[in-house]
């Protein structure tokens, strides 16, 4: 079983890491790059497949050379065997379309130069772009079946089919089970949970973790970088030139006004009446609170 996980480096939006300037614009230089949080589920799905069926998992990402660290993080946390970075100045400022063209070329090049791919895993939208388009667009170029919003996955390596549970339209209450032949493109939902109900699977998982820690320490030895020449891409169709999306400006979202009012009441027994009195206007509903209490 040969799988590829597509991943992207994004600004670390977590509290304490992210940095904004006075106008509320993201300070990219001061904010560290991390693996897109949703991609975690894609790598978990790839890992589950590897643990259950063996094989090889490669990570692939498009981005500047600094993204190698993101692939290292992926390697360490999800036990990648090796990684491929599609990196070239010509690729800068790609929108989802140009990115999909590039990733598609990456996958084709991988099939030509490395091995035939059985499964491609991608996460559900990135934390910085939030479009959810790149995965499906990349698959469209491959002309493979695609299964999105996957929350559970079972691969039959002999029959070369997969069976997946997916959320219908992202609705958590409605789950359908679908089957698809390999090779196949799988987009995981943030609800995806790997399951390991066999002791042997858990022992394999533990073994892989130990092996990967060694590998991640020397991740550069397991990294291949491809530029637009390696990928056989025409500079007119990639990067800024190949991107039909034009961002005119970015406006910060104004903060919602919030006002809070607190009344301290000593919780003596006699004061419960006072509490009730204070709360009465809210209990009645409507706007009796005059904006207080949010």
């Amino acid at each position, binding site marked *: 079983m040969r799988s590829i996980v597509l991943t992207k480096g994004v600004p670390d939006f977590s509290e304490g890491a992210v940095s904004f300037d006075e106008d509320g614009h993201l300070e990219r230089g001061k904010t560290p790059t991390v693996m897109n949080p949703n991609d975690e589920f894609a790598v978990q799905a790839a890992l589950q497949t590897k643990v259950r069926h063996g094989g090889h998992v490669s990570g692939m990402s498009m981005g500047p050379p600094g993204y190698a660290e993101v692939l290292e993080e992926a390697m360490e946390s999800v036990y990648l065997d090796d990684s491929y970075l599609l990196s070239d100045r010509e690729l800068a400022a790609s929108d989802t379309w140009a990115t999909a063209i590039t990733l598609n070329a990456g996958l084709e090049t991988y099939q030509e130069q490395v091995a035939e791919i059985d499964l491609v895993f991608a996460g559900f939208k990135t934390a910085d772009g939030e479009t959810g388009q790149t995965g499906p667009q990349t698959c469209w170029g491959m002309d493979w079946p695609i299964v999105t919003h996957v929350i559970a996955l079972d691969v039959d390596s002999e029959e070369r089919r997969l069976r997946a549970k997916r959320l219908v339209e992202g609705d958590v209450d409605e789950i359908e089970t679908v089957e698809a032949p390999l090779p196949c493109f799988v987009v995981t939902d943030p609800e995806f949970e790997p399951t390991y109900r066999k002791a042997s699977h*858990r022992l394999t998982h533990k073994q892989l973790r130990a092996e990967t820690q060694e590998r991640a320490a020397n991740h550069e030895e397991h990294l291949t970088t491809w530029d637009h020449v390696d990928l056989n891409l025409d500079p007119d169709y990639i990067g800024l030139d190949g991107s039909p999306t034009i961002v005119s400006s970015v406006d910060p979202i104004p903060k919602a006004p919030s006002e809070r009012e607190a009344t301290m009441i000593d919780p003596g027994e006699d004061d419960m009446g006072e509490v009730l009195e204070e709360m009465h206007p809210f209990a009645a509903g409507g706007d009796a609170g005059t904006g207080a209490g949010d």
Partner: protein
Amino acid sequence: MSTDTADREHYEAVVVGCGPGGAAAAARLAEHGVETLVLERGTEAGSKNVSGGLIYAEDSAPYTIDDLFDGFREEAAERPVTDYRIHNVAGNSVKTYDLRDLHEHDTDWCEAVLRRRMDSWLEQRVHEKTSETGGGVLTNVRVNGLLREDGEIVGVTCDELDPIGADLIVAADGVNSELARDAGLMDWEEPEEWFQGVKAVVDMDPAVIDDRFDLGEDEGAAHLFSGDLFEDVRGGGFLYTNEDSLSIGTVFHLDSLVEQQAEPHQLLDALLTHPMMARWLGDEYAEREYAAKLVPDSKKVAHPEPYQDRLVLVGDAAGQMQAQGPIIKGMNHAVTAGALAADAFAVTRGNADPEAAGRRYAKLLEDSGTMDKLRPRRYELARAVGERETVTNAVERVLDSPVGRVALGNPISNRLLERAYNSPFLVSMLPDTRTGYVTVPSIIGEQHGRTIQWETDIEPPTLEERIGELTYDTDVGNPHIELEDESFDASGAAVYACPVSAEDFGGGCYRSEEVTHNGSEETVVSLDTQPCVECGTCAIVADTTWEHPRGGKGVEYREG
């Protein structure tokens, strides 16, 4: 998930629990080339374990832990015990006896240990060894019962994994072994069969420890305490030196705790705040961890035939915890038992009789003398007269009379008493009555003791603070204990005896409440399992359905 036999996983041996007993069994099985899977419910071995804790290597034992695990003493232990004393306390008067002779009897070495460090080290070694024969250690997996086929035990069932078949199942799942209870080999019925221990691990700089206990390199101290420190509750206290901390605790007969309605954490505080502790604790007291554990009394519950079908019990699960007066040995017997169970399986491997290994194991326990240490025949004989209430009362009256006081109080008896305490033969006959625990030590303290003039300003943390410092991963909405009978008669004892509950404390597991029911007032007991330290006390003293939390859930000890 399939439970079909065809598709079921099978290992030659499944070991449940990776404490010293499970680790010894697994290591020895691997040495015999047996494919061995070890399942541990903690997030790491040791995270669910507590002991006093001293581990012994006995000269007479067929196996010791450093036989099985090279480097154990250097890597996993704290300090060797080179100084061993007992303090008899009567009020502020304390008489100390040197117990080195007793301590060194049959002892190759003895080390103080902290279980998180020790067991997690063992887990690594066990995983290395068992990986070589096709198995390994898995953490965060709770085995919840026995898998049976046509009424015969053939494997285990787990919360996290599909059922697993095995030719040998080693239940090393501790004092609250769910497997031993599933098999009907052990129960949780009688408080007299158990002790309960609570312990504080106290932070202390290594140089300060050396100074206060007068220790050199590779030296450590063990101190025991008995007498009227704890009023009439039968039990005692201990203090052991670790590398950079002290383990200070108290251990009581559970029936005595229940009878006296004593609060375990207050008994611990009585020891911590006694003036004699001041010279060791100084002015600054920093408690790292509060912990509790149920301890089986091997004299009463060590199972003479700890097996059924392919299941064998090892360590606390089989009641193999020797507590006779100042002798407290558990982990060493678990190690011996684990290794013997593995040997028994190795020699009977391939035998069609599913009980062949179990029978051989019981015989090895007997032949190696382990069973006689756990259930000494001398105790059985002495107990028949020693523990009858009338005898106790008569002895008590004599001891308490001027004659008794002179007998115990004269200078000759002082020397004799020290010798008696150091006699393994006499100690093994000590009856479990208040005479041995309270009356004799307090008369000794009173008659021979020196009055302690130090003062102590130590304020131990409150129970609320102690619970607040513990780490929990709560299985929200899935409590592992259910209260079957909420009446005070059935379950009220838990309000006192539970080490994380107390009367008039709302933040513990058990509390009592007055409710008005059809106009009449009634006291009922309620339960919140969130602060539970999984000691098992309430399984015995209250009417509950008791299980361990799922793998990785519940309390996580950092020291243990």
